[in-house]
């Protein structure tokens, strides 16, 4: 069927939904099949995505009016290259995480909840894909809600008391921010009469209600800042991300906060386009300052953490600052850097959390101190960690280097050299907290009784995804030229 690929983006989003709906019944029939089925649905989703390679016009987008209603009347999916790119990132990382989950979750989550876990997992991944490609602000809200509810619950899925508390904290900050999104959408709607992003972009410029637009933008940005854990609103993140089961930490830290940051870009560039920046300048300035503060704060806090997963969580705060700074540079390079950073940070962070998960699975170790000499028993995990840390620091030839290059270049081009310096300081901080762990793993003698001499790697279904992700950081660094041109064009199109 020629042209069938048009339907693939929506199928990528809805097939996991469908799969999630089938899971309870499947679990009733045969519980063992549930993890495989979830992986299967995500694989289909990702597989469909690969057919879209080269189908998205450079600098343009695929528009898919749902139900055949032309855009301002129906809901439109707008798949531009950056959206597609992130969608594939979500598909890939989710697939790795869901395969990783099978053994890990068996151990941490009590049997009756495993089905619910996979249902939520599928919903979370699929809603993220919908979130990045939707062209309708209200639909954005709906997708964000599926995403949020599933992530609140997934944090608490172990039933451990700290986990429940962290989840509640997350919900307590997340729910008001969701409501704020709805309020912002309502304000936008009240002065434009439309919900479609492209239509909004056309009407925002010449509607007379300046104050309302400013307010709606500020509210939306504030709300997404909470979801993306940008500095002063990050309070929920360290607890939630460090206590959640590791594959979920990987998803939350690697993707969930990042796509929320991407939503800021969507709102800024697709709704309040260049023409309306007069309205939103102040908010953007404030956002940039918050981002810069986040880079430094997150990095410094990460250095002082004793808990391994806590350190990685704080590092996420720092890296969300990177993304925000890229977006607020307001030039194609900055946006490209931000999108690419979402990808490579997602991969690397997921990999780090999976490494942490491997240690917890085998040894129950959570403290950084306990990782001294770990490579004797778990060399592959340690190597994977080092590769991912390489990317987090932004050293060549990993993907982190490419995105750091574009982020810094974007800041310099925007004439914001102080932010460029902040980004570089951020990478120094990253080097400090990452190298400490790498140093402990490889170059420190193990403490008595912590690590023996016998090899005891995590099971293959956990090691393979970990390794796949760590190699992916290299792949996206070395072969970044395959994507960057299209990303730059897509970013230029946004401006």
């Amino acid at each position, binding site marked *: 069927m020629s042209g069938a690929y048009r339907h693939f983006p929506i199928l990528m989003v809805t097939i996991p939904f469908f799969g999630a709906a089938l899971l309870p019944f499947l679990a009733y029939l045969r519980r063992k099949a549930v993890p495989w089925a979830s992986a299967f649905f995500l694989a289909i989703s990702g597989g469909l995505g690969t057919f879209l390679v080269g189908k998205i016009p450079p600098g343009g987008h695929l528009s898919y009016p749902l139900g055949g209603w032309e855009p301002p009347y129906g809901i439109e999916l707008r798949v531009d290259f950056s959206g597609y790119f992130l969608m594939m990132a979500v598909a890939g990382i989710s697939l790795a995480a869901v395969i990783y989950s099978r053994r890990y979750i068996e151990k941490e989550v009590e049997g009756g909840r495993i089905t619910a876990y996979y249902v939520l997992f599928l919903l979370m991944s699929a809603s993220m894909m919908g979130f990045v490609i939707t062209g309708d602000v209200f639909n954005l809200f*709906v997708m964000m809600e599926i995403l949020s*509810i599933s992530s609140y619950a997934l944090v608490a899925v172990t*039933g451990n008391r700290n986990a429940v508390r962290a989840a*509640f904290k997350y919900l*307590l900050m997340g*729910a008001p921010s969701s409501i704020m999104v709805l*309020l912002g959408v309502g304000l936008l709607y009240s002065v434009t009469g439309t919900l479609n992003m492209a239509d909004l972009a056309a009407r925002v410029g010449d509607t007379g209600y300046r104050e309302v637009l400013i307010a709606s933008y500020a509210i939306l940005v504030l709300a997404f800042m909470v979801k993306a854990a940008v500095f002063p609103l990050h309070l929920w993140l360290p607890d939630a991300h460090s206590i959640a089961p590791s594959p979920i930490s990987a998803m939350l830290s690697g993707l969930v906060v990042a796509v929320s940051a991407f939503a800021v870009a969507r709102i800024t560039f697709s709704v309040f386009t260049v023409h309306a920046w007069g309205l939103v300048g102040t908010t953007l300035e404030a956002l940039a300052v918050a981002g810069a503060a986040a880079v430094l704060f997150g990095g410094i806090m990460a250095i002082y953490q004793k808990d391994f997963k806590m350190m990685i969580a704080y590092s996420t705060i720092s890296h969300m600052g990177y993304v925000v700074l890229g977006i607020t540079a307001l030039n194609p390079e900055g946006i490209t850097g931000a999108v690419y950073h979402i990808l490579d940070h997602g991969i690397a962070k997921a990999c780090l959390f999976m490494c942490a998960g491997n240690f917890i699975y085998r040894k129950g170790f959570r403290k950084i101190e306990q990782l001294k000499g770990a490579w004797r028993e778990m060399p592959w995990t340690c190597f994977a960690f080092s590769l991912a840390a390489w990317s987090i620091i932004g050293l060549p030839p990993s993907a982190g280097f490419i995105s750091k290059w574009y982020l810094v270049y974007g800041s310099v081009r925007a004439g914001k050299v102080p932010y460029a310096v902040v980004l570089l300081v951020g990478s120094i901080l990253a080097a400090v907290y990452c190298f400490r762990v790498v140093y402990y793993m490889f170059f420190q003698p193990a403490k008595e009784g912590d690590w023996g001499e016998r090899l005891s790697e995590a099971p293959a279904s956990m090691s393979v995804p970990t390794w796949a992700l760590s190699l992916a950081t290299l792949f996206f660094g070395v072969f970044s030229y395959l994507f960057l041109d299209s990303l730059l064009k897509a970013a230029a199109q946004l401006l």
Partner: protein
Amino acid sequence: MNLWHNFHYAVAMVLFCVGLYAVIMRRNIIKKIIGINIMETSVFLFLISIGYRKGGVAPVHVEGLDPSRMVNPLPQSLILTGIVVAVSITALALSLAILLYRQFGTLDVNRLFREEEEEAG
């Protein structure tokens, strides 16, 4: 004066702040959840008011009714979705509250967090 004319909106905004107050200041978890619900309701009220039209009727086609007299159906359908979302969040929040109460024996946020500090220390 627009504010007087828009008093529906104004009330919604005040309610929003009341809800936010409850979420931030109340120590009891259930009250916080109620605060979230108040916030949600205020936004629903706000959206529904946007869709209002002077002298309008329900947007259901009946013989002899001029469509231009109907109120705006779009906010109504949005709110329907919004309500479902609100119900979902509330359900989850209450489940978490149940679990928290079972594990800590309290619904008081201060006590929950004091324990956290003790555990850390």
